[in-house]
């Protein structure tokens, strides 16, 4: 016996839409935009809450714990640690479809590649970011692993300048 799903009669359908693409939004000036601008100089900045001393990367505007606005900016380390990670199976066509676009077919992702996604906390910060973990085999990834930021050859101040992270040097006693 396998999986059982009850089937129900199909009745007529009528169509309609929710035009989400017609929405406009607002973001605070001086936070994610400034964070990204600093990528041009290969710098990672965050905000420092004067209430609790936490450093948020990417920058946050309101600290929920202290219930106050954060305006102070600080530069943080390029080194961090892996808090959690995911590993994709080798990618195939038809497996990653976003808003009707097949990401492999369209060439955004390569056929057969395996992607490791890491949740990274940069040193001295209280928050985390999801970044691809590059130049590492899935078998070699472990929690708490030290990683460093990998930048594009030419940084132009865009989110994509920060390609991901890669394993940092490890010093071992031999």
């Amino acid at each position: 016996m396998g999986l059982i799903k009850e089937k129900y009669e199909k009745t007529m359908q009528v169509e309609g839409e929710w035009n989400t693409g017609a929405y406009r939004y607002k973001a605070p000036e001086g936070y994610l935009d400034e964070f990204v601008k600093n990528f041009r100089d290969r710098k990672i900045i965050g905000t420092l809450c004067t209430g609790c001393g936490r450093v948020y990367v990417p920058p946050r505007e309101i600290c929920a714990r202290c219930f106050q606005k954060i305006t102070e900016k600080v530069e943080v380390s390029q080194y961090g640690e892996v808090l959690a990670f995911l590993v994709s199976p080798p990618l195939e066509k038809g497996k990653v479809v976003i808003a009707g676009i097949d990401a492999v077919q369209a060439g955004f992702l390569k056929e057969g590649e395996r992607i490791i996604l890491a949740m990274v906390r940069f040193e001295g910060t209280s928050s985390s970011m999801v970044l691809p973990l590059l130049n590492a085999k899935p078998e070699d990834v472990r929690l708490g692993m030290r990683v460093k930021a990998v930048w594009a050859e030419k940084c132009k101040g865009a989110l994509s300048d920060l390609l991901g992270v890669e394993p940092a040097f490890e010093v071992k006693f031999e």
Partner: protein
Amino acid sequence: MGVVRYEGLPFVARFRWNTGKIMEKFYGGFAERQILAAKCENCGYTVVPPRVICPKCSSKMNENNLVKLDGRGVVLSYTVVRKKLDGKGGFVTLDKPEVIAAVKLNGADSMIFAKIGDVDVEDIKSGMEVVPVWAEKPEGRLSDLLYFRPG
């Protein structure tokens, strides 16, 4: 400090709502140029389009409650629409204003909202009698019922 304004990604969420069996019958009636309503056996309220629960006494209804209406109706209220939504949140000014009315169909207790055509906007009045105008070849779809006209 200010804000950065930006647009949402170009994505439209689409829906295909199941109408359920009784509404399917309602649209099926369109193929014969017929408007079906549901008459509650308990309180006598007649609702169009038909539905499975009486809006007045909550009695259960089904296909056996369907009754045929003659299609004629009376305008309870109307409005001349000069500005229409474009589906993206904007308004477009109509070159030719359109009329929409609340119509009570003969034999029904509820009302429907329908376009009124073949009439000068100055001539439309509440209390006016109207009849449906059907597509040339009705197929049992929503688009079969084009609009209502005085008659």
